[in-house]
Every structure is written in structure tokens, then in C-alpha cells.
């Protein structure tokens, strides 16, 4: 009974925190876009391409877009609508921002889902082989890959893959969203740093798990090293890595922004780059809130599932940590 009440409070508090995160993301992105020089009207009238900017036309546009109203008024009106899921109309295209977001969602989901699977496979294989490798030099080599992987710029990986597998070997298209082939190189591009990140986490976790006393007991019972690592240590080492899912998702999403540009793919990344360049506040806000929502939900799910997977973690302790 007492447990159930605590559980309920815990969930309520976590959801409350999530709402605050969403509001903060919305407000901060609004302020940042406002503080940057230039607004949608100036950019629209300027055309961005050496064309004239007529102050009268800009003023007219500004009033049409509601940009001449006081900041607080713009903010409150936009926030009020956002609460109902209405992020307003894109200043650049005149279409509802939520429509643009929904249209861009499927290609990015396909890309990040594929990249996620690749990252996990890549990360686990790398961490385990670094841990299991017999030769010291090989262990050292494999252990040095994750720090390298997380530090290479994504666009550079993308261009290297393009150069090798599209321009030279001509195995995959260099651009577009058509078919599975167009997904391969972009997904690998994102999976290299994300997989390296997973490998780093797992390796660290594996090392500390292997140092624990119970491992010695398992070894003493005559289990093979392979069995010790795969059957016992890995399972326990993997659990702490779960908490980093939020960071991983962040990596996947920010990887998508760069990758979609390098590979000329449609998706949320391209949408947000274009929107930021055009100071298209409604679209940027819709994307920011969406991304924040993904983080909040992912972390909430992890926090709720975590105690169920690992019985040793009591609710009280989790709640304490979360607070």
C-alpha cells in the first residue's frame, strides 16, 4: 500500500518534471530565436540571394506575421496555442508547422531507428571484443576505437563514406530518400559515433563489473572466460548503460541533422536547419518541443523500467536519486 502511494507520487513527480522540461525548451528556443539578429520578415524580403531589402515591404510583412507585436504578447499567444498542439503557421512557407513536422518525421524515424540498431550492435560487438581479445595489443587497439569514434565529426564520416561507397564503388546513391539503399550510408554515418559511445559505456561498465567479487566466485566455479563475460558480467554491465538512452537519442537526433544535410535527405534535421536559417520560429519551436518530448518520454520510460529490470534498485533509492 505504502509502496503504491510512493510509486504514484514518483510517477506524478517525474511527469511534472517532464512538463517543466518541455516548457523550458519552448521558452528558451523562443528567446534565442528572438535574440538572434534578423527576423523572418527581413529574411523573407531579402531573399537571401543578393536581392534588395525594401524597408516598407519588410514592415508590411512584419505586421502580417505578427512580428510587430510586443515580445511577451507574441510569446503568450504562441504558448497558449502550443498547449493545444498548434504551433502556428511557418513564416517561410505559410503552412502549419505541425504539418511540416509530421511530414518530416517518417524519414528521420527510419534513419534513426536503423542507426540505433546499428549503433547497439556495433557498440556491443566492439566492447565485448575489446574485453575478450586475448592479445594485449589487440585489446589496446580495440579500446582506443571508441574515443576515436565519438570525436570524429559526423559530416566528415559522411563524406568519407560517400567518397568510398557512392562516388568510387557506386554501391549506394549519394542523395535522396528512395529505397533502403539510400538509408545505408547515412545510418552508418550516425551509427559510428553513437556506437562508439555505447562501446565506451559498456567497456567501462564491464571493467567495473569484472572487478567485483562475485565474478571471482563464478571463475572459481570453473566457468570459461567467455562464459564469465557473456553470461554474467555483460548482463549486469548492460543495465547501467540503459540510463544513458537519453544521451544516445540526443546523439542520434543531432547526427541526423548533419547527416540529412550531407546526404540530401528529407527529415526533421533538414527541416530545422532550414527553419533556423529563415528564423522560422513556429517550425523551430515545433521541432524543439518534439525533440524535448522524445527525451522526456525516453528518460521516463527508462526510469520506470529500470527498477523492474534490476531488483536490487529499490523504489525509494530511485526516487531519491531522481529527486
Amino acid at each position: 500500500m505504502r509502496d503504491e502511494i510512493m510509486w504514484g507520487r514518483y510517477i506524478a513527480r517525474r511527469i511534472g518534471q517532464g512538463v517543466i522540461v518541455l516548457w523550458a525548451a519552448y521558452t528558451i528556443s523562443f528567446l534565442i530565436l528572438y535574440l538572434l539578429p534578423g527576423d523572418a520578415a527581413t529574411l523573407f524580403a531579402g531573399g537571401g540571394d543578393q536581392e534588395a531589402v525594401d524597408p516598407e515591404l519588410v514592415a508590411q510583412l512584419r505586421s502580417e506575421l505578427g512580428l510587430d507585436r510586443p515580445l511577451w504578447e507574441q510569446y503568450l499567444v504562441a504558448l497558449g496555442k502550443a498547449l493545444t498542439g498548434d504551433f502556428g503557421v511557418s513564416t517561410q512557407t505559410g503552412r502549419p508547422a505541425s504539418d511540416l513536422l509530421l511530414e518530416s518525421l517518417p524519414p528521420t524515424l527510419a534513419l534513426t531507428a536503423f542507426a540505433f540498431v546499428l549503433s547497439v550492435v556495433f557498440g556491443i560487438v566492439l566492447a565485448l571484443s575489446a574485453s575478450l581479445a586475448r592479445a594485449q595489443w589487440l585489446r589496446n587497439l580495440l579500446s582506443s576505437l571508441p574515443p576515436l569514434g565519438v570525436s570524429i565529426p559526423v559530416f566528415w564520416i559522411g563524406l568519407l563514406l560517400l567518397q568510398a561507397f557512392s562516388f568510387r564503388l557506386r554501391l549506394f546513391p549519394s542523395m535522396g530518400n528512395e529505397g533502403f539503399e539510400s538509408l545505408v550510408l547515412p545510418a552508418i554515418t550516425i551509427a559510428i559515433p553513437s556506437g562508439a559511445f555505447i562501446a565506451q559505456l559498456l567497456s567501462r561498465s564491464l571493467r567495473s563489473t569484472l572487478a567485483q567479487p562475485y565474478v571471482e566466485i563464478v571463475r572459481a566455479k570453473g566457468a570459461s572466460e567467455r562464459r564469465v563475460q557473456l553470461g554474467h558480467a555483460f548482463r549486469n554491465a548492460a543495465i547501467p548503460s540503459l540510463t544513458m538512452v537519453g544521451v544516445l537519442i540526443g546523439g542520434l537526433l543531432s547526427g541526423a541533422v548533419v547527416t540529412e544535410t550531407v546526404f540530401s535527405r528529407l527529415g526533421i534535421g533538414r527541416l530545422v536547419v532550414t527553419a533556423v536559417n529563415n528564423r522560422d520560429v513556429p517550425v523551430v519551436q515545433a521541432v524543439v518541443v518534439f525533440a524535448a518530448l522524445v527525451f522526456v518520454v525516453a528518460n521516463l520510460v527508462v526510469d520506470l523500467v529500470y527498477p523492474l529490470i534490476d531488483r536490487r534498485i529499490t523504489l525509494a533509492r530511485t526516487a531519491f536519486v531522481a529527486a
Partner: protein
Amino acid sequence: MSFTRPRTAALAAIGVVALTLTACATGAGDPAPTASAEAEPVTGGNLTFAISVDSQCIDPQQVGNNDAIAIARQTVASLTIQDPETGEILPWLASDFEVNDDATSFTFTLQDGPAYADGEPIDAASVKTNFEAIQALGAKATLGSSYLADLESIDVVDDQTVTINFSEPNAQFLQATSTFTLGLLSPATAAVSQADRCLGNFVGSGPFSVQSYTPNEGAVLERREGYEWGPSTAGHTGEAYLDTITYKVVPESGNRTGSLQSGQIDATTGIATADAVLFEGDDFWSLNRANPGSVYNLYANQSTEKLADENVRLAIQKGIDREQITATLLGPDDLPAVSPLASSTPYFTDLSDVLEYDPEAAADLLEESGWTEGDDGIREKDGEKLSFHVTYWQSPKEVLELVQQQLRQIGVDLQLTFASIADVTAANADGTYDFSYGNLTRADPDVLRTVFSVDGTNNATKRTEPAEIDELLDEQAAIIDPAERQKVVDEAAELLITGGYSIPIYQLSTTITAASKVQGLTFEASSRLDFYDAWIAE
């Protein structure tokens, strides 16, 4: 990263295989793409063209970005056409046109026969509908609205005759009628919402129609059947040759280069100068043309005390070595400015005799104004440094860095901030700059009025008091006779230089880079792409 590229015949053959891999390419059969320029054009095929940016709109009456224009231009025919060679305005949809003496009234007689893609005739009433729709678009039609400024009335005289009246002399309007932005759309389009028109929901009058457009991905245009009113400047009349043109948005420069090399696209204008060498040889060709209009200029904000001094502006103008800039930083086709106007602009005259690199004269001018060299080599007066600030986004960014070094030699400190287009547009709109930097594409000398006039749309020099130059700029706008207009444009251009209003640097140019199987792809008078004569050699 750099490309090392063994380009052999065998690889060229693989290129054809790669072509068939891409979903958009139609079956290309010939492994040796070496069709000669004299070959007979063939009908059919698809041309895949990469653009660098997507401005989220392809409606010809709304767009202003060169990449969007590369799409939009093909969908509309115009009242007139400008000869890219001579700059002369010739008949197109209008078989005849007349301008009154003070350039306030323009009468067009339309050809009998041409129709919009929905079958509606291209008549006088539809011209009126078009121009009124552009006015209604207001700021959403940046270029069109500025061309139609001071429009007073449009009279439909009869089905084939329309007269457009302005309240002020407006000689540029005739050239404006040749541009894509005043290209004609079916009257039904005027009722379509601005946003839907951007997405390609418009009915045009040109050789191609929109088949599809996906923002950030690209567009597909298809040949319009029954199009028989190609302009006299084109290589042929009748329908276009290509079945389709596929435009792909490829923002990454390295991707454009590699995709063109590997045959995944057929042509582009977006190859970086440094990559141009990769396309020398038989498998590719390139074509360059200066963009007409105002060249890249440093526009001095004359509302600031230091730059109100003509000596200071002239010193900076004389302290810039334009030859060194083009020779060291740019491609072989990029030329130093020799006038405020680019050499491809009608009424251009070479003013290199008054626009000289002369650092000694520059130093003398600054001494004369009391700017003496300080300990650090930067000149100062009354404790103030001769230091300026410019924010810019244009590439290559090394150009202004070299200008900075050159100006330092005459004791002028130029501080540079490389920023986003958004930041620069904002700074220019606010007038919070010492210098702004940029060019403006327009195949009419009236562009000088837009940029430099005290009442100009840009008024980039931020002057407040009209001067002699403003009289000249207004005067040329009212002259229809070419010889007379030439005289006044020359006077204005020379005064812009000698009065230190214009600090020109170099001419922007556009380069088409294409696979050798692409034929007939060329520039119209404003150095924008024209696909009407283009065809694919088998």
C-alpha cells in the same frame, strides 16, 4: 578533403552503369559521351540538375533566389525577351511594344495563339490579372513588386492589347517584362493561395510544367505539349527537347562534386572554385557568365562621419588591388570590376581609367584629410583610429580578407565578421554598419538606382541628402532612347567612381558544370539558367 581521381575510359563506362543505378536517370546507353556541339538535338530524356539551396518556393512571381529561379524560369514565358548578347529587349509573347516619350506608359500587342497550360488564352485581360496579382502578393513578391512600383493603371485596350501606366518614369519596366518574375501565369493561379503557389500549384505559360515539388528534396518539371512560342533568342522554336528536368537539392558542396563526377547528377552551378579542376577534360564541360547588375561592392555608410568624407572613400577605393584578388583567389573566369556595373549588363562601359589601384594617391588623400599614420601603422586623427567594420556572408570569404590586407598597407583597418545570411540581412536592414558588402543581379543599369540612389530600394550608402548622382540616376530611368540613356548611364557610373560612392571589387559570375552528354543548357540575359534548348546526347 581532396579528391584524387583516376579518370579513365573504363571509369567513364562504369559511370553509365552508375547512372542506371540512380532512380531518376533514364536509361543512358552510350558509354562514350562525346557528342559534338554540332550534333542534331534529340527529343526525350531527363536531365538531373543539382541546386544548393531550397528557398521553399518555386512560384516564379515570388522567388528571388538563383536556385529557385533555375526552376521557376522554365515554367513561364514573358511579354518580352532580352537578348543575352546585346541586352536588347525583343518581342516574345508580345509581338510588338511601344513606350511613350517619358517612359511612363507601355503598350504591348500580344501574339494571337499562345495559351496557358490549362488552355486559357494569353490575352490582355490575363496580363492585367497577373500584374494585379503580383501587387496583391506585396512583400511576398519582392522582385515583382519593386518592378511594378509606381504602377498607376492597367488598361485592357482590346483582347490583344494592354497598356500599363506608371505615375513616374520607369524605363527599367521594359526589361522587367522580360524577367521570370513578371512571367505570365494562368488567371486561375491568381486565386490560389500564396503558400500553395509556392508548392508548385500554378499554371504557367512556358515550355515546362511542374510535375512535382517537395521542399528540401527537389522538383520535377515536364515538357509541355503544344508549346510553340519559343523566343527568337533561342536555338529552336516549338516544344522543349527534354521530357523532364529533375532538380535535386544538394546542400553539401562535396556531395555535388562527387555526384557530378560519378554521374548521379548531370549538371549543376554549385561547384566550388577549388573543385573546378576536377571537371577539366572531355567528360565534362563548363560555361561561365558574369551576372549582370551591380558588381560586388563595399558600400560605405555615408551617414557616418568618417565615411561622409569623400577622400576617405576614394582612398579605400584606390587602395584595393582588384587584379590581385581575382588572380590569387578566384577562378580564371572571375574578372575584376571595372565599373559599378558588371560587364554583362546592358549600357556597361569600361571605366578602368578612372578606377585604378593607386596606393600612393590613396595615402595622399588620407593625409589631405588629416589622417596620419600612428605607431601601429593604422592612421588616426584626433585620437581616433581609421578603423571600419564589415559583416558579410558571401564566399569565398578570403576576398575580403585580402582586401583587409591591402587596406592595411594604406593605413586603414578593416574589421571583418563572417556571419550567416540572416545576421547580414539584419545588419543591412538596420543600417548599423560602416560597410556592407554584396552585389545585385539585374540586366538593366537601373540597378544602380536601386542600390545607390538616396531614394533607392537599398540606399546602401545610407545617404540622406540628394546629390548630383541622384539626378543622374533618376534621369536615366526616364530615357527610352538607347543612345541618350547610354550617355547618362555612363555619366552616372563615372560619378559613382570619381565621387567615391561605389567601391567595386569584382564581378560575380555563374558557372554551369555539366557532363558532356548535356547539350544546349545555357544562360539567359540575367545569367540565370535556360533549359529550353537543352537536350541529352545519347
